[in-house]
């Protein structure tokens, strides 16, 4: 007597009633047209950038500061073109971005199991939980001098600083994500037989994903910031010119337009990574769980 022999579906019977209830009670979803999306998401930042440019031009035009302190946008643009024509622009960006991403991936590999341990093992939480939260408020610049002394002026020093900045964020994000899983889902998982590692894989990690992603996002921001600090403070010819060194070189050459260029590039990379990787990921996770308000 397998359950496959369902009764004929009669519109007046329970099946018909069910269909009606389901239709009345279900969420209606639709897609917003592309033009509306563009108008809502692209237009506002474009307007904001235009406004900043206008204010900048006005300040230059009013000569609130001499040109060596406040270069006009055109001088910074020339700087961009120069670096592009010399072929160094992408080199600068890539030197820093590759360091940042590699460091971030290492932070991920260390922070994730660490967060899982802190969240699930009472003793570990009591032992290093507070330290982990405390480390988040310690500016990672503070790690640059000891890292230089211990590891010397090389890439490992950079990675050490990135890790010290990002691992606590990643771990803390995961802990917060795990703590926010409704206890009912954990119970449901246990009754289904998801305990131990299977529980971690099928219930705990996916359940903690929203908080974990928030931690990753912050972890990336911290990686990037600590890397820039390290590059500015510890520049050496063997390290290659990343964006931090570019900024430091601009200061040494008293070239404000180069300093501006470096600052813009640092900001741009930060925004680009967030916009291209984290925001879509976060939106996808929230939408698939019905946690994103559609209008």
């Amino acid at each position, binding site marked *: 007597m397998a*359950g496959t022999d369902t009764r004929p579906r009669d519109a007046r019977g329970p099946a018909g*009633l069910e269909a009606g209830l*389901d239709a009345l*009670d*279900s969420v209606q*979803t639709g897609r917003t047209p592309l033009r509306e999306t563009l108008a809502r998401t692209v237009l506002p930042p474009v307007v904001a950038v235009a406004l900043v440019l206008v204010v900048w031009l006005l300040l230059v035009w009013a000569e609130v500061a001499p040109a060596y302190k406040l270069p006009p946008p055109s001088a910074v643009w020339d700087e961009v073109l120069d670096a592009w024509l010399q072929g160094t622009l992408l080199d600068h960006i890539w030197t820093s971005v590759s360091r940042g991403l590699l460091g971030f991936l290492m932070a991920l590999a260390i922070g994730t199991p660490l967060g899982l341990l802190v969240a699930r093992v009472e003793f570990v939480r009591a032992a290093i939980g507070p330290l982990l939260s405390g480390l988040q408020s310690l500016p990672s610049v503070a790690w640059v001098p000891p890292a230089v002394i211990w590891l010397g002026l090389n890439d490992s020093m950079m990675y050490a600083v990135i890790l010290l900045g990002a691992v606590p964020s990643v771990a803390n994000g995961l802990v917060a994500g795990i703590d926010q899983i409704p206890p009912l889902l954990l119970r*449901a998982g246990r009754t289904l037989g998801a305990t131990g590692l299977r529980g971690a894989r099928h219930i705990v990690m996916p359940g903690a994903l929203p908080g974990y992603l928030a931690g990753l996002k912050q972890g990336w921001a911290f990686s990037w910031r600590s890397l820039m600090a390290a590059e500015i403070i510890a520049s050496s010819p063997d390290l290659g010119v990343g964006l931090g060194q570019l900024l430091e070189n601009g200061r040494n050459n008293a070239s404000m337009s180069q300093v501006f260029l470096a600052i813009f590039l640092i900001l741009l990379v930060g925004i680009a990574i967030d916009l291209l990787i984290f925001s879509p990921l976060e939106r996808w996770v929230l939408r698939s769980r*019905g*946690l994103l308000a559609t209008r």
Partner: protein
Amino acid sequence: MATTLTKAAEGATAVTHAARIEHVSKSFPAPGLPGGQQLVLDDITLDVAPGEFVTLLGASGCGKSTLLNLVAGLDLPSTGTISTDGRPALMFQEHALFPWLTAGKNIELALRLRGVAGPERRQEAERLLELVRLQGAYRKRVHELSGGMRQRVALARALAQDSRLLLMDEPFAALDAITRDVLHDELTRIWSETGLSVLFVTHNVREAVRLAQRVVLLASRPGRIAQEWTVGIPQPRRIEDSAVAELSVEITEELRGEIRRHGRH
């Protein structure tokens, strides 16, 4: 996988009960009380026969959910023993579906954790969805389903565990009356098709009588078995049947008596 939902009794002739609860008591630490313990369940003895549908009925605080947790193995009794025929499936008042999975994948996760091989899972999940009349909902996300549909997916997921005993903790209490009524019909149909044993907790007397072969009334604080009724009304019943109403009136009277007892102290 046509064998998964065959009658429990066929596979296990030696088993005489789906669940056996013997002299079970449960206390929780309560620092404010004399003795430092709050007795929640007091000497409960109850058998659920294979294929039997039993409802546990009681007012708030009678420990019915605690008892269900003990049978589910989520907690241990303070004294007494509980044995079940395999690990029971459990359904909650809230659907407890995993929001990161589709309806179909929720069911497949239960199958996977039970050890069903990959290629069979999809087919079995579709079959279970059809059993709860949700064919076509495989790809639906949890938040896209109505309250009644969610509980039906939760039922399908519980059935996917292929347990002989289904524990239900007020599974329809949060639904509107008409949806609840429909789900009563579905549950009765699925129960008679699969031969599952069901232990169903509720505070709704009519629901208890509508569904069960046996209604067990629990007294509150501490939870004790106060009285039992065998319901002889043939299925399928309707909640508005006069026989259901008649027995409900009798049981409600007893339940009221139990509740009044507490007001006198």
